[in-house]
């Protein structure tokens, strides 16, 4: 074991205990090594990349978790507290306040979509799972729109949501898809509950949970059953002329787009095609296709509204306190089997369907 000291962006010194690489080797070299034919070398490099990122994630999220209190079931009369800000194409957050809870809709369609999307998200969590906002205790929901210029992204910064307008050539406005809004806010729910580390399999679970509830928010707001839903993430986000229907497909991972500028949707649907990479925090937006597809299989096998039984099982695992922050797909899968048995009936229809869904994507859940 080697101890070494580095600095965390020039602020406090950080002690790391990492064998071999010590955090000095630049990640792009580790990246190269991780693909090395020599298994010992590649495994060590991969472990270091995973460790470093996990350590950084832990540091980042610790402060947030200490503020978390156990959420009591929400009263049916709870209401959202939304505020929308206009970043004015700059990057200072949050920007100028342009709409607050209860105010009339204005001229800016982006502001109105963000406001409605926050409301739809609040609604699903409250009505389906009796959760009062992101933290379970009525956390105000803040969002900034028009972030930066031609910005091709939306993200959760730990406190609020941020939306870019897209470049207009490949991506349109990131508020244009309600599941994107639900996806970002669900990163907040995860942060206040299981706090899944944003790297490797736990990171892909973090991403998948956001896709699952993002899609459920869309289905709930449209009143769609599992059989009627499109199971797409970011439908409407690709600009006209881009060859694709969305950014991800839970129904058929890997088929959302195939375009000369964007490339092809890299998501696998099963463990057989799991992508081993250090990029994108260990492929968090890639391998999320596997648990995404398991959820789709479960929801369509059970039928009816996906947010009811399938969504309840996933929600119980996310918020139940047993899901470790460094959970693997198999850890998560086992907890869903237990949750299905506890919520419904041990060995019943739901448990059987959960087991079958995970088996179909190649994850050992028993």
């Amino acid at each position, binding site marked *: 074991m080697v101890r070494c000291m580095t600095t965390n962006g020039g602020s406090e010194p950080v002690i790391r205990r990492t064998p071999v690489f010590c955090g000095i080797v630049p990640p792009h070299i580790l990246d190269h090594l991780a693909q090395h034919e020599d298994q010992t070398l590649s495994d060590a490099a991969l472990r270091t990349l995973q460790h470093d990122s996990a350590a*950084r994630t832990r540091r980042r999220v610790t402060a947030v978790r200490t503020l978390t209190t156990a959420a009591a079931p929400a009263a049916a009369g709870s209401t959202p507290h939304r505020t929308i800000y206009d970043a004015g194409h700059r990057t200072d957050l949050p920007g100028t306040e342009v709409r607050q809870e209860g105010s009339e809709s204005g001229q800016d369609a982006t502001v109105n979509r963000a406001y409605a999307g926050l409301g739809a998200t609040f609604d699903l969590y409250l009505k389906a799972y009796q959760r009062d906002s992101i933290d379970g205790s009525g956390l105000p929901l803040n969002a900034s729109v028009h972030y930066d210029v031609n910005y091709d992204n939306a993200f959760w910064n730990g406190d609020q949501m941020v939306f870019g307008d897209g470049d207009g050539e490949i991506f349109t406005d*990131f508020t244009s898809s309600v599941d*994107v809004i639900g996806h*970002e806010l669900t*990163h907040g729910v995860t942060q206040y509950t299981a706090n899944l580390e944003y790297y490797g399999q736990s990171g892909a679970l973090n991403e998948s949970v956001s896709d699952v509830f993002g899609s459920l928010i869309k289905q709930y707001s449209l009143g769609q059953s599992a059989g009627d839903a499109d199971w797409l993430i970011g439908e409407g986000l690709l600009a006209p002329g881009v060859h694709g229907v969305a950014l991800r497909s839970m129904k058929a991972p890997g088929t959302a787009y195939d375009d000369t500028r964007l490339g092809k949707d890299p998501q696998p649907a099963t463990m057989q095609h799991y992508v081993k990479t250090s990029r994108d*925090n260990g492929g968090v937006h890639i391998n999320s296709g596997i648990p995404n597809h398991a959820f789709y299989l479960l929801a369509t096998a059970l039928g009816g509204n996906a947010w009811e039984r399938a969504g309840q099982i996933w929600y119980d695992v996310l918020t139940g306190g047993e899901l470790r922050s460094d959970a693997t797909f198999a850890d998560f899968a086992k907890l869903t089997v237990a949750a299905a048995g506890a919520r419904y009936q041990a060995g019943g229809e739901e448990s059987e369907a959960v087991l079958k869904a995970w088996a179909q994507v190649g994850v050992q859940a028993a």
Partner: protein
Amino acid sequence: MRIQVRRTGGFAGIERRAEVDTSGRPDAPEWQALAERALATGRGTPPPGVPDGFAYEITVDGRTAYAADPQLSEEQRELISRVLKEGA
């Protein structure tokens, strides 16, 4: 001077990279000054970032610095935006 930018992560999880070679360009001094300032405000290892945030790798003649949204310096933001727009 070769200036390379790689952007990873983001909601879409789609990687973008581009490169500008300043040799022979009339605005080379301006690019070089901007690149040096962007490198100086970067980190030696990738910073933590946020869920769905972009992560950036800036390489100038073999020297690499890392940055992540939303904590970019003005110089990094300008350089990244120009290289991804004008670079090949």
